[in-house]
């Protein structure tokens, strides 16, 4: 049993390493060849895990081979559009201003139910709201709505709105995140002072803080554990 446990840990770590090497895209938007790879890896990993007579190398060697193959395929497809089209396909327009392109749908083996499900996922329930719908190579549908149904943006309203800044997390579950504190140009004492100044109790300690974020213009959010969160304005950050 110990053998199986140790093997499982070892293979888990290797598969984790393999997926990290393949990059983040692997986890979200998978191309056909990446999907195939993921399926094979899942199957390969379980064989040496469950079968003690099979050496762990029998699992590792094919895994490494597949990662290498993936690396080579990615490298070639990045440099060659033709090759990329062969292994990943190309985006297909399934809805155009004239309506649904039935020929394209047949080629993609897509039913109208599938199409409507994908459109609903994009937030469009009526086909007449859509100017173009494109089936991407990763199987997702991108929609471009007709102008009259496109969501209104601040630009359309010609409103002058201050830019948004990404808030950085300074304290999370009682711990100061050092890199973020350095990025904000705040010392631990300064962070604690801001927290104490803006919390209900002046004796608030770091361990009582659930979340404390701040953005470049000094908009901050503080929530203590088991309490409601509150937003407030503090000094503008020097660095970010």
């Amino acid at each position: 049993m110990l053998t199986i446990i140790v093997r499982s840990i070892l293979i888990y770590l290797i598969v984790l390493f393999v997926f990290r090497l393949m990059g983040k895209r692997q986890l979200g938007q998978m191309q056909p060849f990446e999907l195939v790879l993921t399926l094979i890896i899942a199957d390969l990993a379980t064989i040496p895990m469950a079968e003690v007579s099979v050496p762990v190398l029998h699992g590792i060697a094919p895994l490494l081979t597949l990662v290498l193959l993936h690396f080579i395929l990615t490298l070639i497809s990045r440099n060659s559009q033709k090759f990329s089209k062969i292994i990943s396909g190309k985006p297909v327009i399934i809805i155009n201003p004239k309506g649904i392109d039935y020929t394209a749908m047949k080629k993609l083996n897509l039913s109208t139910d599938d199409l409507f499900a994908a459109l609903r996922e994009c937030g469009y329930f009526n086909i007449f709201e859509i100017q173009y719908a494109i089936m991407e190579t990763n199987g997702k549908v991108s929609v471009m709505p007709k102008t009259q149904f496109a969501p209104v943006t601040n630009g359309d309203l010609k409103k002058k709105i201050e830019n948004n800044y990404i808030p950085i997390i300074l304290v999370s579950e009682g711990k100061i995140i050092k890199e973020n504190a350095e990025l904000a140009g705040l010392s631990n004492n300064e962070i604690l002072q801001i927290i104490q100044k803006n919390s209900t109790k002046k004796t608030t300690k770091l361990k009582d803080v659930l979340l404390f974020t701040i953005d470049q213009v000094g908009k901050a959010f503080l929530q203590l554990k088991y309490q409601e969160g509150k937003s407030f304005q503090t000094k503008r950050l020097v660095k970010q």
Partner: protein
Amino acid sequence: MKIFHYINFLIMFLLLIGICVLEDFLVSKSLSDIQNRCYKIEKVLERKENLKNMEIILTIDNLEYTWLNYESEMCYMVNHKSIQEIGEEIARLKLYIPSNDINSFKVSLQVIKSYCHSYLHFMGANFHNIL
């Protein structure tokens, strides 16, 4: 970061080649040695018609010891179940000595040689195995 990525893949590539070479070397060395030892035992048998003699006993002990060493090395590379028959046949060889069962002893030796021969083919890198 990109260089680190390339180095990673280079290491993996070299590792795979290393594993393949090592496996091929280990399998061919072990199985050929066991096969040769079986031929030697057959020659000893031609000279001495009795199994109950020190030379045979020592040679078989030696064969068993060598095989156990090879087996433990090969277990890193080869499915253990695929090679266990050789160990079983060697254990049988030892059983035939007290009863002086020469015929069964010879059959077991043949079986070991045959296993070694077929495993050499089955585990080696060749076109048949790839397909």
